[in-house]
């Protein structure tokens, strides 16, 4: 049984490597092969000199055959030898600089959205059809529909600028002052979490209602377990599994720079904001690097979550096995 989990994990890790390779090829093709025109000119910026373009062409080997070009690109990305031709800054250094900020945002927001989604999902499932369920259901819909830039700006303006309770933006490293770190992040966390709470609480509610009707929950009650234990060990434990898969995707996306709007509204200077700024300037090397970096996080996290899922639900380990 332990062996089956190890085998499953190995298979998943192997296919993860395959997917990462495919993603990198795709990025290469999309950025350097598909668009018409000279990739060196596109990279160089708005008004490049002939010499600059030639230098870039030589650096990236754009005259080489495509497979060699691909290898050059990967070597440059992996060794941190990619430079923006606008800012002259090293792209990988910039991403690493933004990473702790993005990580802080993602982890805090994830804790908030999971905790609240579980609480709300359980509460509304147990009172399904009641007034509280309908009200919270409507509220979840509102939360999902609120545009992040609008909600973020609103919070930042009223609670930050006007009331002065929270800072309107900026970032303080955790190592410098944990309190200030959290204080500066409360509004971004809330802004980012609202959408996810809406989605996750409704999905969880539906799954819990389904699980409550299952035979094993009736068995658990017939065994004489307390209602609390039935809910935690036999209902929530099972219903959280599909949510976990979704969480892996969303959390990976935020880590990979997906929270562009939240980062920009609160001026966190994270990976997402870096991507947004680079796109605004049509600065290709950073955009390429961030794309690959984001894909990497999504694929890796998704794989880890799949392995965790298999550890928590043995039936997943069977090839082609279904959950119910």
């Amino acid at each position, binding site marked *: *049984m332990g062996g089956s989990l190890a*085998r499953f994990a*190995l298979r998943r890790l192997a296919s993860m490597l395959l997917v990462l390779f495919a993603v990198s090829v795709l990025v290469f093709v999309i950025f350097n092969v598909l668009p018409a025109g000279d990739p060196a000119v596109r990279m160089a910026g708005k008004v490049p000199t002939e010499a600059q373009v030639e230098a870039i062409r030589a650096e990236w080997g754009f005259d080489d055959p495509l497979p060699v070009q691909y290898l050059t690109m990967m070597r440059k990305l992996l060794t941190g030898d990619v430079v923006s031709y606008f800012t002259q800054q090293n792209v990988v250094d910039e991403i690493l600089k933004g990473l702790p900020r993005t990580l802080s945002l993602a982890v805090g927001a994830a804790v908030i959205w999971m905790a609240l989604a579980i609480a709300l999902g359980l509460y509304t499932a147990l009172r399904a059809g009641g007034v509280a369920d309908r009200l919270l259901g409507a509220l979840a819909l509102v939360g999902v529909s609120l545009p992040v830039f609008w909600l973020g700006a609103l919070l930042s303006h009223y609670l930050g600028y006007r009331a002065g309770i929270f800072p309107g933006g900026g970032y303080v490293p955790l190592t410098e002052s944990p309190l200030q770190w959290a204080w500066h992040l409360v509004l971004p966390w809330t802004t980012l979490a609202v959408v996810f709470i809406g989605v996750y609480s409704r999905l969880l509610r539906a799954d819990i209602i389904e699980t409550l009707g299952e*035979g094993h929950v*009736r*068995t*658990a009650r*017939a065994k004489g377990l307390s209602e609390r234990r039935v809910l935690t060990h036999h209902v929530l434990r099972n219903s959280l599994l599909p949510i976990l898969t979704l969480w892996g995707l969303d959390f990976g996306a935020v880590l990979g720079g997906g929270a562009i709007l939240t980062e920009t509204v609160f001026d966190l200077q994270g990976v997402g904001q870096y991507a947004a700024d680079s796109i605004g300037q049509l600065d290709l090397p950073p955009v390429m690097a961030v794309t690959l970096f984001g894909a990497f996080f999504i694929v890796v996290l998704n794989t880890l979550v799949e392995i965790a899922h298999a550890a928590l639900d043995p039936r997943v380990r069977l090839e082609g096995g279904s959950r119910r």
Partner: protein
Amino acid sequence: MRAAASPALLEVRGLRVSFRTDRGVVRAVDGVDFDLRAGEVLALVGESGSGKTATALALLGLNRGPNAEIDGSARIGGAELIGAPEEELRRVRGGQVGFVFQDAMTAFNPVYRVGAQIVEAIRAHRPESGREEARARAVELLDAVGIPDPERAADAYPHELSGGMRQRALIAMALAPEPEALIADEPTTALDVTVQAQILRLLARLNRERQLATLLITHDLGVVAETADRVAVMRDGRVVEAGLVEEVFRRPRDPYTRALLAAVPRLDRPLARRARARGDGPLLEVEGLVKHFPLRAGALGGREAGRVRAVDGIGLRIGAGEALGLVGESGSGKTTACRAILRLVEPDAGSIRFDGVELTALPQRRLRALRAQMQMVFQDPWSSLNPRHRVGRIVAAPLRVHGVASGRELRRRVDELLETVGLSPADRDRFPHEFSGGQRQRIGIARALALRPRLVVCDEPVSALDVSIQAQIVALLGELRERLGLAYLFVAHDIAVVREVCDRIAVMRAGRMVEEGEAERVCAAPREEYTQRLIASVPVPEPRAGRAGPV
């Protein structure tokens, strides 16, 4: 009787359960009385919907809810259960009354190991017992219910055990907190006849050894005769007849009891043989059919570690208008054989000739056209009908797919088909969930008949149904065969049912044919030991007839 002397452990008086639904109040249980004593088995018999499960659940408050109304009285050792606070009931649940549910696959939580779930049951009632101690007790119980390697079973997940072992483990879990009474709700319905016989013997033994008071809920009168001391027959929420098993079976007073008894398929019942429709030559000829499934191993699943020989070289012949029964336990390869014959899975080797045409080499397009003449009726009338389609659309689907009819003609054909299977054209606009199990199976049969097939493959068409409904479907299949000149390949694990429908019987075991012959001959004088065992396992509605040992 011995049992009558002792006072009742459980006294139920005037129990009523009703549920508020969208369509008004449903009275599930309507004034039920019974007593249950230590050391006796009381069987609660009835069809689905008769209120037997609702009765059992109500005793422990397991069907309480905002839409349920439960009143009357149920006392265990003098303590009232109906209306008792949850905290009190919780001690009774599992602690005083153990519950064994029908389907062990869904009754266990799939994400925990079997041992851990038994330990949880023990510790719910004995919080003072340590994990080690509870675990040792769990293994001991798994051993007591006859599981060969109890240590390993305790470490297994529910899906890693076979159906019979899972049911044993479920019984072990119910016994874990040492209850005085056991409620077993259709404990063998999901099992093969041979496994069923083992589980029934186990329940009888436990009842004897532990002086348990057992409430056995079943729709199968054969099971009652083999296990119970007393029986209460339920219909529409009421007990219509109750008494000692011998008396009720020998001299049933209520007409409903008599009808139920008559519905049980029996191997010793003379059959009104239909004149066998004989066409010219065989309709289906199968030779050397093989279907193996590889077992994958290795880190990436690339290495083939072994093969499941699901179908391992079988041959069979069905004449036009003839019915062949295929019998065997689950896992014997019956279903795979059917699917391979229709090429729903690709066979690995062998030849399949339908009406002289070799199917194995046929291109998909021509196979599709031929499939119109070979239709299938599935086992589970719940999952084989699309819940979001109306009945009319379900039955019309084959006609549409094959472009046979459309518009008004299609509608006429659908109405005709519904009438053929004993439904009404008005049922066209209803959804599958509005029908009972038997009616759904009729819908499945109507769909299979839509294209006027010559061969219908029935894969366990009645095993998910109540005995009385089973008899109706079997009768319908017999009548349709005569009227439409159909040939059947009829798959079932219950040889008594097969005998009622088929001219010949083929017995399958582990992917091979064990025995084949005229139905009457195979049932009356089986040549193989395996066939004999299958026949001996069929529960007989004859008190004490099949009962092992003294009670």
